[in-house]
């Protein structure tokens, strides 16, 4: 550099250059902001989704009950005093519980006279209220002839009104609850006879046509059985495939084909697996429709690629020194694998398996194909019983016209997400706990 250069203006300080520099910096900030906004849009979508599910879903865990003085009218129950225990229970099950509730409601609302109004009054309570009266009668025969206050389950419409999902400002014709019913409810409310509580039936019973009686236990058990089948099939086969491909397979055209195959299977749409299950398991092998066995088999085929790919990564992470040491001690190749490589890579394999299982738990489309969409009230007891799964139950409820099912759908989604968070949390925890640096 010469003196002349120092005295003359450097091109960096000319006005045009400065302007250009400023522009470039402005562009820099703008681009950074655009990038951030992209990220924020994604996060916003997540936030809206979670918030909207939780705001509609949390009330699904609550239920409304009406405290009614039920007069256990001996004239309606007509119980013979000298029945043995079994006969008594059988008799109590046949009692006209509906009439018991109706008459008790009439006693509480003496000014309700017409037949139609009484029917409307009765509709404040759920059909499940009859079961509660029956259970009370079975539990304690001495209550016959007495008047006892009972917390009876309210109907879905009442439940939604109390939770504020039906507004009383709307015209009577466009809401499901009539003005008269509102007046009665106000009276009950004024007497402190409306109780809110935790909806145990939601967690402890199967599906139902009535939103207030519908539960997710049946679907949850169905999901559990399905996942069990998936795990039993996919885990051993997946791990065996991974060991073979990673450790034993000769490098040739065949193994190349298998590898490309697995990678492609991982990206096949899940509904195609449903078609496969329908065509092969149901139509060729004549397995029972709607059974967790078929669902599990289908999902196993679907999760197999995930398990194979993660297992291979875990096996690859075991350093060759371990293998060489084992072989140096005189172990055969199989012994090396089974006694050393497999135990060391097991945490990684299990992590992958859990992630695959979480995927299978959330999967709906293949299960629709093999008929796990039926309306099933009973909780399934084996892998051959007809069953639904949690996501399918969500789909069914979301499609239901009954408005009371909306909060149930969201509540079921919350339960499903809870399971998924637990499973993924377990996977992350395992990865951290057993992570080894070689």
């Amino acid at each position, binding site marked *: 550099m010469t003196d002349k250069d120092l005295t003359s203006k450097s091109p960096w300080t000319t006005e045009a250059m400065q302007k250009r520099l400023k522009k*470039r910096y402005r*562009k820099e900030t703008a*681009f*950074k902001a655009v*990038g*951030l906004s*992209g*990220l924020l*849009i*994604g*996060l916003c*979508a997540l936030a809206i*989704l979670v918030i*909207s*599910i939780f705001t509609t879903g949390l009330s699904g865990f609550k239920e409304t009950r009406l405290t009614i003085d039920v007069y256990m009218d001996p004239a309606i129950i007509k119980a013979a005093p000298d029945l043995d225990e079994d006969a008594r229970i059988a008799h109590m099950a046949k009692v006209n519980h509906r009439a018991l509730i109706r008459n008790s409601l009439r006693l509480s609302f003496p000014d309700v006279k017409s037949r139609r109004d009484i029917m409307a009054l009765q509709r404040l309570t759920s059909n499940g209220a009859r079961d509660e009266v029956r259970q009370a009668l079975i539990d304690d025969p001495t209550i016959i002839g007495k008047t006892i206050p009972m917390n009876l389950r309210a109907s879905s419409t009442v439940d939604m009104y109390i939770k504020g999902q039906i507004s009383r400002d709307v015209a009577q014709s466009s809401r499901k609850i009539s003005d008269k019913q509102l007046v009665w409810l106000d009276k009950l409310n004024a007497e402190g006879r409306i109780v809110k509580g935790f909806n145990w039936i939601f967690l402890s019973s199967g599906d139902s046509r009535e939103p207030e009686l519908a539960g997710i236990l049946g679907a949850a058990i169905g999901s559990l059985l399905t996942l069990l089948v998936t795990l039993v099939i996919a885990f051993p*086969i997946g791990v*065996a*495939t991974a*060991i*073979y491909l990673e450790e*034993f*397979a000769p490098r040739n055209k065949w193994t190349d084909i*298998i590898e490309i*195959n697995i*990678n*492609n*299977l991982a*990206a*096949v*749409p*899940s*509904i*195609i*697996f449903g*078609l*496969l299950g329908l*065509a092969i398991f149901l*139509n060729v092998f004549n397995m029972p429709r709607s059974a967790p066995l078929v669902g599990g088999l289908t999902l196993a*085929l679907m999760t*197999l690629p995930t398990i194979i790919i993660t297992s291979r990564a875990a096996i690859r992470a075991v350093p060759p020194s371990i293998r060489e040491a084992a072989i140096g001690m005189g172990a*055969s*190749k*199989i012994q090396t694998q089974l006694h050393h490589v497999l135990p060391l890579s097991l945490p990684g394999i299990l992590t992958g398996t859990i992630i695959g299982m979480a995927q299978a738990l*959330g*999967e*709906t*489309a293949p299960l*629709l*194909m093999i008929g796990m969409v039926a309306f099933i009230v009973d909780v399934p007891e084996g892998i051959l019983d007809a069953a639904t799964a949690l*996501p*399918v139950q*969500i*789909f069914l409820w*979301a499609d239901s016209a009954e408005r009371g099912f909306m909060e149930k*759908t*969201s509540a079921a*989604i919350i339960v*499903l*997400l809870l399971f*998924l968070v637990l499973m993924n949390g377990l996977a992350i925890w395992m990865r951290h706990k057993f992570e080894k640096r070689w």
Partner: protein
Amino acid sequence: MLISSAAYFIGRRKALQSVQGDVRQLHSLPGHYGWFSAMTSLLPGMIIILAWIIFGPVIIDNMTLASLAGLEGGEKIQSLSDFDRAIYLNDIHNLAVGDATSRPVTESLTFAAQYYQRAQQDIFWIFSLSAVAISALAATLGIRKISPTMRSRNILERLILSGLALCSLLAVLTTVGIVSSLIFETLRFLDHVSLADFLLGLKWSPQTALRADQVGSSGAFGVIPLFAGTLLITFIALVFAVPVGLLSAIYMTEFASRGARAVFKPLLELLAGIPTVVYGFFAALVVAPFIRTSGDFLGLEIASESALAAGLVMGVMIIPLMSSLSDDVISAVPQSLRDASYGLGATKTETILNVIIPSALPGIVSAFLLAASRAIGETMIVVMAAGMAANLTANPLEAVTTVTVQIVALLTGDQEFNSAKTLSAFALGLALFTITLILNFIALKVVRKYQEQYD
């Protein structure tokens, strides 16, 4: 099972006895001899049981039908078509277990049912006894072969190895199963509808006549409107997801601090873990009504099952896919390229736009292709948020239907399996499978090529 576990211990003892408890003289570990004899007994038994599961019912059915031939009216059954015979057999099965039958219970039917029950028991006993006998036989043979010089470990390990190889074949078998079942059903479908009508038809209304004399419902199986709808929704999803995913990937790899990245990345990937049925519910519950009311506000008429709602939510679903894939490829760009660009005086933005994105472009393209294939094959969101009626339109505010929606609609509920309506679902499935396969294949090829470039 019992026999083989017994064989394990006997074989192990025999091996030990043959060398008077001196393990060193054995070729393999005592356990290996045990496993060897267990396997020799288990495998033939398993084969018998498998044969029973597969062939047993057929044998019983044939025996039952043959027994009917001697009976009055038996001749008729022999001359029935395959399909009618299957129905007849089904009735026999149902009667045997006490279910309802589709025809009046005749004498020959009850006879057949009783025969069926008896035959079932007999065959069961024959098979299980022979299975037990053969495994016992094999076990004794296996145990007799045991001697100190026998290389039981090598045999056992060859067995395990072939078991492993067999498992790895299952993945191929799955693909073969998918392809063959789809192609098989599609060919049957093409008996009803010509290929040209299927691929080029502009109308989709899969209502076939239930009875032959019904009027005017021969059905139309033109696949174009379905693919138009699928592409429309996919296009909307990609228009939303690609910029958002790409920008967040760029921001997270290039601008965000390490701590921010550690928070944002898992949060964004949470979106990938949410089941699609939840997205579907979200689309139907929140997004679609929102779009409709805002449309009302703007004076636009928007269908409540508009393609826009389904597409947007699907876009949200594929954001994490797009962002994590592009994140990977952007991180894979060598630091030296970045440093060179900075050394020339480029700002970060200029480096990203002029250096990093061009060199990561193949990876970004393949991420785009994978996202597209994911969107095309996505089912639950569109089932819950898109329409049912086929509608050939490019207007995102109208309701359209997609291939996957139609597959679900055609196959849920009870249908007979032979109608063109049900079979068309498999034809759609084949089309879907082919398209996604091609997209995935190209994407994987591009990624592999790209990886080699920098390795």
